[in-house]
């Protein structure tokens, strides 16, 4: 039951596009006491069925840009081979630390984009207000 709830929450986060996979790995580590490698590998099993549904839907809707995706996929596979080989050879304790650093980078990026959005929105608001006061 715990597993289904963790999956459910990660699914919702995935829908917002904020990285459901990272949440799944975190929850498996914290609530199920899973070792970092096993949590990561479990995320792979989680990702494949959930993403295939989304991909088929978007292929039918003709939303996939094969011209851009093909080279990225080819080099992505090369990158994944290097990354995965490295990952299985790092001990779980260090991998967990690197994952933590990676999470901080993601958090930094989120804070940056959130701030940017707000400052931009506020500026627009102010401009609109100025226009309105000018009119009146």
């Amino acid at each position, binding site marked *: 039951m715990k597993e*289904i709830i963790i*999956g*459910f*929450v990660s699914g*919702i*986060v*995935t*829908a*917002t*596009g904020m*990285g*459901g*996979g*990272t949440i*799944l790995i*975190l929850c*498996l580590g914290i609530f199920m006491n*899973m070792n970092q*490698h096993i949590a*990561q*590998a*479990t995320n*792979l*099993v*989680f*990702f*494949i*069925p*959930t*993403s295939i*549904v*989304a*991909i088929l839907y*978007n292929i039918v809707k003709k*939303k*996939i840009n094969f011209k*851009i*995706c093909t*080279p*990225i*996929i080819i*080099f*992505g596979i*090369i*990158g*994944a081979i*290097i*990354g*995965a*080989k*490295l*990952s*299985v050879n790092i001990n779980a304790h260090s991998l967990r630390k690197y994952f*933590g650093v990676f*999470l*901080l980078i993601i*958090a930094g990026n*989120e*804070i940056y984009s*959130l701030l940017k959005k707000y400052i931009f929105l506020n500026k627009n608001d102010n401009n609109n207000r100025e226009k309105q006061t000018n009119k009146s």
Partner: protein
Amino acid sequence: MIKKTIIGLLAGFISGLFSSGGGMVLVPAFVYILKLNESDARVNSVFCILPMVITSAFFFYKNNYINWKVGMLCAIGGVVGGFIGAKILHKIPDKYLKLFFLFFLIYSAIRMII
């Protein structure tokens, strides 16, 4: 082409190393470097990540790291959560969700590093 090579290699590397986060690299790269709009970026990133995930799954499988039972149970919850999330999410303010997510992220990152 050089841009696509670097984007692909980097996303693949992160995806292989952490089994996640490929999207965190690809979505901004698609938006800022390849100039796709936000929703196309998300759609195409998922399509690009799947082959990378299958590749890294092979290596984790060979090292006996995959827990099929937990993975499948999570996937069941994930499909339902993804569907409900996509349907109702635009009704919840994005801002609060993001803030909650951020705090959770920073807290757990620090816990992992220490």
